[in-house]
């Protein structure tokens, strides 16, 4: 029939169009983005989520940090192998006997990307900016060890000259601390303490204007190893080697392109397709496959972070320490590691991850279902009888659900108690935690700097990050007064061990495992060691096309 002829003719046309489209798409030159990058010295970096911004004083996230630390440099930087501080803008520094007075000698060849010298005045103005109450900088507390910094940020004093930061001359900056804060140098590699370029900020707004566009490509002036050249939101951020950087001769990379890779599966495909040198994550289910087929690209290392559950200690039955202990002792962390986490994590029995620059957390309890049942019986629930129904709250994510299901099973079989699982969208989950509107909630914490304090100061009485109702006067005394005043590292760690023992004996939290960082890294990437902070120092990276 005529209809058939028409149909066939059309089908042919469609086939032709489709073939044409497909033909256009073939990578005829044969080089993937990674291979091309290896030749051009361009690193393609999967960076998790889209950064909210690049103003070092306003951003708060990890993806932001990884870009900001390529663009700016603080007084010190960190060695990617050891995480010990190395000179940054400051060439040398002295610390007074009592550990409270720091004198930084800035190098005279540090430059902004527009050629201006980086001086002590820049740091003074920048620290003033982040402490400015109107800016609303969430990480301003990193400078609170400095005399009067907290008072200025809270508005109790209004004269910044009373804050313990003094410009002795263009290249000498003096910082007076309230108490010797042994991890203070570590903080100076945190973006909240980075310098920003005053003339640029004032060209686009005032000192405390959050909404100013100064930190965009084309506007930004920075002082780091790289210069911001392109930023297309939700697509990529490109930074290029900054020739005015004082150590530019040592930089091998010509450029870095950061990609927001929110969707883990997409990121995985991008890596397999040769579009990324490095992924931010590895899809959990694919780990065994990669380990078997391409072990050289799998990089799984301990991370300075703990995955835990927390109890609402203001609410029965979790106001009873015996109940909390029973729940903590009855879960089999090794089994959770094997069954849920593909065997890549370390079971945790305390809050601080082991090996935080030499600190070893106490182990106050062992897994013991028998002891757990005894404790539960002592608390008035023999064999789980009469135990009220309760909920585990977690933010919506598949891996958290799997963990909660496994723990639910363990409590049911070992203690004969029933728990329901509740997942909530991130912001709702946060709000319910803040209001102590939960029974047990999943939580994680990643350290800001390498010191036990970044974990332990969460649980001071009424601390903003406490969220459990836990309170202990001796604990507060150690964390707030004794430890910060103790100069000797061993003595201080001893105090932290005492505090952490108090915490774990009261058990407002139930540690589950120590986080690991999981990256796929192309073998061509050299000089990017994986470390406990997941810290990347781009100065050390080079690409080897022959690897």
């Amino acid at each position, binding site marked *: 029939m005529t209809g058939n002829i028409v149909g066939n003719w059309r089908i042919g046309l469609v086939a032709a169009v489709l073939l044409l489209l497909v033909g256009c798409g073939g990578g005829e030159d044969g080089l993937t983005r990674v291979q091309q990058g290896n030749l051009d010295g361009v690193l393609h970096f999967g960076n998790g989520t889209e950064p909210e911004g690049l103003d070092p004083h306003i951003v708060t996230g990890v993806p932001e940090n990884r870009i900001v630390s390529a663009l700016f440099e603080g007084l010190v930087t960190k060695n990617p192998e050891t995480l010990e501080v190395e000179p940054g803008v400051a060439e040398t520094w002295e610390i007074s006997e009592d550990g409270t007075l720091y004198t930084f000698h800035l190098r005279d060849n540090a430059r902004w990307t527009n050629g201006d010298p980086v001086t002590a005045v820049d740091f003074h103005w920048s620290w003033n900016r982040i402490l400015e109450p109107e800016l*609303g900088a969430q990480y301003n507390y990193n400078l609170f060890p400095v005399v009067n910094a907290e008072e200025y940020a809270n508005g109790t004093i209004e004269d910044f000259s009373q804050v313990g930061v003094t410009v002795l001359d263009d290249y000498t900056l003096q910082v007076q601390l309230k108490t010797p804060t042994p991890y203070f140098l570590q903080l100076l590699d945190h973006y909240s303490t980075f310098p920003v370029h005053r003339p640029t900020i004032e060209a686009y707004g005032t000192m405390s204007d959050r909404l100013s566009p100064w930190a965009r490509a084309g506007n930004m002036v920075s002082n780091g190893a790289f210069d911001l050249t392109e930023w297309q939101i939700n697509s990529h951020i490109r930074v290029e080697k900054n020739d005015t950087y004082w150590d530019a001769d040592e930089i091998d990379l010509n450029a870095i392109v950061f990609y927001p890779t929110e969707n883990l599966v997409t990121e995985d495909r991008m890596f397999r397709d040769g579009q990324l040198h490095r992924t931010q994550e590895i899809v959990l289910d694919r780990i065994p496959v990669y380990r078997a087929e391409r072990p050289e690209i799998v990089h799984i290392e301990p991370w300075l972070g703990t995955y835990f559950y927390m109890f609402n200690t203001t609410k029965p039955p979790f106001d009873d320490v015996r109940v909390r202990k029973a729940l903590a002792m009855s879960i089999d962390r090794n089994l959770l590691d094997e069954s849920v986490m593909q065997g890549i994590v370390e079971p945790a029995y305390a809050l601080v991850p082991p090996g935080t620059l030499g600190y070893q957390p106490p182990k106050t309890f062992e897994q013991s279902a028998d002891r757990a049942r005894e404790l539960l019986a002592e608390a008035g629930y023999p064999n789980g009888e009469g135990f009220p129904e309760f909920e585990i709250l977690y933010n919506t994510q598949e891996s958290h659900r799997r963990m909660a299901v496994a723990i639910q099973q363990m409590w049911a079989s070992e203690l004969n108690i029933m728990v329901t699982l509740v997942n909530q969208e991130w912001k709702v989950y946060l709000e319910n935690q803040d209001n102590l509107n939960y029974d047990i909630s999943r939580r994680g914490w990643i350290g800001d700097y390498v010191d036990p304090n970044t974990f332990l100061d969460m649980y001071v009485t009424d601390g903003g990050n406490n969220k459990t109702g836990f309170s202990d006067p001796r604990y507060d005394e150690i964390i707030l007064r004794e430890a910060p005043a103790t100069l000797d590292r061993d003595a201080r760690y001893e105090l932290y061990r005492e505090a952490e023992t108090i915490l774990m004996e009261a058990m407002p939290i139930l540690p589950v495992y120590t986080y690991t960082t999981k990256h796929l890294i192309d073998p061509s990437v050299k000089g990017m060691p994986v470390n406990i902070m997941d810290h990347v120092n781009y100065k050390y990276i080079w690409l080897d096309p022959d690897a």
Partner: protein
Amino acid sequence: MWRFIAFRTLQAIPVILTVITVTFFLVRVAPGGPFSSEKAVSPQVEAALERQYRLDLPMYQQYFTYLADLAQGDMGPSFNFPGQRVDELILQGLPITAELGLYAMLVAVVIGVLAGVIAALKPNSIQDYIPMSLAMVGICMPTFLLGPLLVLVFGIWFDWLPVSGWGSSPGDKILPSITLGAMYAAYIARLSRSGMLEVLSQDYMRTARAKGLPGHVVVIKHALRGGLLPVISYLGPAFAGLLSGSFVVETIFQIPGLGRFYVQAAFNRDYTMILGTTTFLATLIVLFNLLSDFLAAWLNPRLRYQFSKGK
């Protein structure tokens, strides 16, 4: 006809205003705020943040300030991207989403109309069943399944096409366009099949054949015009749907379009961004519905007649 256009346009204004008002208050009663984060925020910092975004004003005042700004084309600063304005972000994402929508539409129309026409020419035969079953699969298959499947086959196994990106490597626009267009192609196939069937059974078709016109001329010149009417009135809403519904495809393929802004904004409680994108998309949807109404009225004498007499 002009009365019809004026009437429908006026009708659109209260619709858009209602969308703005409802969205404005809904986002503010949603639990969690734009500044809540995992790390505690001190009260001083929170107060400063609220002042910077005028959240310290009474609610009604915020509402009227917002409306006044909006009337001047200012959608306010984004909460989630400090230093970026909502209107700028929308303008940045729109061309990409529109381009994606356009290609998806092209895919949908070409494949859909062809499949529908082919099926209608020989109803209840194998030539009908195959395209229509495929269309059924297309309607049922969600984009979050189709996208990764296409990527797996054409991106990873055959290695013909890039697995992600938009305009950064040759051919990377093909898979997203097909993924997004597939469902609409399926709808269009069913619509054009039924439209064609109705037309093909009309008397004037027999007349056309009887006067000895070749088959393809009959179909293309006479049948298509009437048979595709339902498709045309579907195009407006479909295009609006493509623009507002591209989020999943944009996420799968790492495309920096409007859809991702929209959904990210909701999760982050980026009040101004939620409002801006919702208002913008609502306006678009209303606009496209209007356009397709006008187009249908212009093409369909029956409707045109009804309006010039009735209202």
